[in-house]
């Protein structure tokens, strides 16, 4: 490679390094914020899903329309991805889980609710119906947004537009480990919900140790079972969705931070190698020039 080319390449790599380092710093700040909100939200989410789990075991709920198991003809899929890429294997992990969830169904049997552009693009490109697509730009999404989504899902389930609701999201374990998961949200059932609760383990506090869920046989419900469950189930479902969204957010920023850190490290390494190569080539050119001059002089002297 010519000297000039190497120099240009070093310049380009250095510029890339500044970009990735800046993105790393931005992601690190967002990561800290979203991790804190995901971790502090866990005890709340756990309490909410635990309530949902306990009441799901009672007779009133088994009779509730949202808990009715039907033959699955159509399925609703909620996919929580990021809007932007450059986050390592994060989105492909979620999309893999999502694809796994709908594998048994034809494209026209699936209704997709995409939270984040990556999921929307993936399913639109493959000919699925995307019923609703949300942007996933902000980090402080209000609970009410999830309530709207939960209302949509329950209404669709009750109207028979679909017979099952599955959510694919990323569970946050640590900065270096995020696990893509899928959970069944509707119809409500004890085993499916227990699975979600057991997945929610806060970093510290009362719930950080394993606790068995004991479902009482009957609840005294005030005013009436229908009224209470009508309010309770959509709200608790919304909280469960909100929890999954917070987890996905924390995962996204952690994954991006790590990916950008790797990119920065790599660009540093490449810069070092290229500089070394540049020096070598430069030295070779000097040596060649010197030997040319020397041999020219010798030829003249002879």
């Amino acid at each position: 490679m010519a000297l000039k080319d190497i120099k240009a390449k070093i310049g380009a790599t250095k510029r890339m390094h500044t970009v990735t380092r800046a993105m790393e710093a931005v992601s690190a700040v967002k990561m800290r914020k979203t991790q804190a909100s995901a971790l502090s939200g866990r005890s709340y989410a756990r309490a909410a899903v635990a309530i949902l789990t306990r009441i799901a075991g009672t007779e009133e709920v088994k009779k509730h329309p949202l808990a009715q198991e039907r033959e699955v003809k159509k399925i609703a899929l909620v996919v929580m991805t990021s809007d932007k890429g450059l986050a390592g294997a994060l989105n492909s992990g979620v999309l893999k889980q999502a694809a796994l969830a709908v594998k048994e169904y034809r494209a026209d049997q699936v209704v997709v609710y995409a939270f984040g552009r990556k999921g929307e693009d993936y399913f639109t490109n493959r000919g699925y119906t995307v019923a609703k697509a949300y942007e996933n730009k902000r980090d402080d999404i209000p609970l009410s947004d999830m309530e709207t989504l939960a209302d949509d899902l329950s209404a669709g389930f009750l109207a028979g537009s679909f017979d099952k609701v599955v959510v694919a999201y990323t569970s946050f374990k640590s900065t270096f480990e995020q696990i893509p998961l899928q959970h069944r949200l509707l119809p409500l059932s004890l085993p499916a919900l227990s699975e979600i609760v057991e997945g929610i383990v806060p970093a510290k506090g009362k719930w950080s140790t394993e606790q068995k869920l004991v479902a009482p046989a009957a609840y005294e419900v005030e005013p009436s079972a229908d009224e209470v469950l009508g309010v309770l189930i959509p709200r608790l479902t919304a909280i469960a969705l909100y929890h999954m969204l917070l987890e996905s957010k924390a995962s996204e920023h952690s994954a991006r931070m790590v990916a950008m850190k790797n990119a920065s490290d790599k660009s540093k390494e490449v810069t070092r190698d290229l500089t070394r190569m540049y020096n070598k080539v430069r030295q070779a050119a000097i040596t060649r020039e010197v030997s040319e001059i020397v041999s020219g002089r010798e030829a003249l002297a002879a």
Partner: protein
Amino acid sequence: MAKTFHLTIARVGDNLFEGQAKSVTVPGAEGVLTILAEHEAFVSPLKPGTIRVEPLEGEATTIVIEENGIVEVSGNQATVLL
């Protein structure tokens, strides 16, 4: 010694109360109700109003809530979600 139960009052991203309590008074959908220890399994939506907590130790505190919530009691523990 008065009987106590475990009480959790939480809002999204914010734990308002967590610990042993002697009683808690909440604005239920059907009117104000007080929950003591060993209350039977119970679930009800809440209206905006004030929650009064009497903890095991220390002064009783009141929390004003402006949103609807949920109260759930089971196995001698109560959870209030706002």
